[in-house]
């Protein structure tokens, strides 16, 4: 068990390597053409052929997804405070938000492009529109499910609802808020990539679309791997931030 930590890193990498070898072998034995399903060697070759092109487009996707996520986080946190404060506000606004969330956001991209052109704006907006809901819901729920006795105790000191909310309910919701950013992160990437596919001339979404139309499937796969890797790494960074900022919430090692 002493080397458990080392295995935690090595084991998944080993699994990945074995899967890659198996994949390579299956493709070679079965003669599936590269444009249908490229073997890992062809995908690696694509990385080698287009290093700067991929880097540039990754940077585009990353920027719009992260800006969208940041706006979604700020928006959700800010909005959850009045929603938590007043049941009346909650009852009149929350159903609208839920209703909006039911719209497939991909369908909005052409409209966003019509209004904002083909620049970064529609990509950032799509990322934001998809990412805010999975952040808002857990954050708000954490704020409005405070222990009744704690609430009463603070009230008994003469504290107002707003004061209790800011000093207790909001910090109490922070672990939920931060962990919801993981969901928000993947949603934001989905948003950016969709917008790039529908209305853009850059970004990994655009590269996937254009490369598959040229039957350059290895390049599309390279994009997918980049997306997965980037989201994974940012998620890890988020986890580190979580442990630092709200370590108190993880005092039990489950």
């Amino acid at each position, binding site marked *: 068990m002493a080397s458990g930590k080392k295995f935690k890193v090595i084991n998944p990498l080993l699994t990945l390597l074995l899967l890659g070898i198996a994949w390579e072998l299956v493709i070679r034995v079965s003669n599936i053409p590269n444009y249908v399903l490229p073997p890992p060697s062809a995908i690696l070759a694509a990385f080698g052929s287009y290093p700067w092109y991929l880097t540039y487009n990754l940077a585009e996707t990353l920027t719009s997804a992260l800006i969208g996520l940041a706006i979604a986080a700020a928006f959700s946190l800010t909005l959850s405070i009045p929603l938590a404060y007043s049941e009346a506000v909650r009852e009149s606004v929350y159903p609208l938000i839920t209703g909006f969330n039911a719209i497939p956001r991909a369908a909005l991209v052409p409209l966003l492009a019509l209004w904002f052109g083909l620049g970064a704006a529609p990509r950032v907006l799509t990322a934001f529109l998809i990412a805010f809901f999975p952040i808002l819901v857990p954050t708000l729920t954490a704020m409005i499910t405070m*222990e009744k*006795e*704690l609430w*009463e*105790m*603070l*009230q*008994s*000191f*003469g*504290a107002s609802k707003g*004061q*209790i909310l800011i*000093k*207790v309910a909001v*910090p*109490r919701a*922070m672990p939920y808020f931060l962990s919801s950013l993981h969901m928000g992160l993947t949603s934001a990437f989905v948003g950016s990539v969709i917008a790039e596919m529908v209305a853009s001339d850059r970004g990994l979404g655009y590269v996937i679309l254009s490369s598959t139309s040229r039957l350059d499937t290895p390049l599309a796969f390279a994009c997918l791997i980049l997306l997965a890797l980037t989201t994974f790494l940012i998620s890890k960074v988020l986890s580190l931030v979580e442990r630092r900022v*709200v370590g*108190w*919430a993880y*005092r039990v090692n489950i």
Partner: protein
Amino acid sequence: MEPAIRLCGITVRYGNGDGGLVAVADVDLDVMPGEVVSIVGKSGCGKTTLLKVIAGLVKPVRGELVLNGHKANTPHRGVGMLFQSPLLLPWRTVIKNILLPIEVLNGDVRSYLSRAYELIEKVGLKGFENSYPWELSGGMQQRVALCRALIHKPSTLLLDEPFSALDAITREEMWGLLQEIIEYERCTTVLVTHDVREAVLLSDRVVVISGRPGRVRSEVRVDFRRPRGLDIQYTKEFNDYVAMIKSLIGD
């Protein structure tokens, strides 16, 4: 002398119409300044409700709450509350938990700092100021909660089964500590408890409530000088009080 707390014909109802429930009815109760009064009675008879009425957290449908001669019906800063569970905030250190009431009220936290340290020392937690609540035992957490209840120098301390989650030995320690604190702070104290021995040991008067709806059934004055040592429990008078109060609760 004017009573510190006067309940006058207090009736509390939860919910309206047929689904409503009268939790307590026509309760009259006076508590003199500095007095320690315990409220005992069966589970669900309305003890917590009475405490909340005194804190201004529950509005009676009938009757009046008078504090030091002034009518009151909203939460007021004159009370400190302690519940069965310490309800400390896990992201705040001991000292910051204790100062929470001051902070929430946008008070000058720094001018209360020395009081906070003084209380911490009084309850025997010196050295734990910067620990987090989850690093403390249950008894220690309840001591922190007691400091928090007292930080704003309330004239009245309201305790709702404050020690029932603690083991017997810790509970006896807390009895001693609470007596010291009450003596030192000169608080008027209302204690709700299920433990009749605790009620007799700590209070000047024990009020027995009968249930559904809660009414004052009887009052027993406990004639021991305060503060009281723990060995008083083994005297005959003490056990006579306990037996009498138990029989009053019983039927």
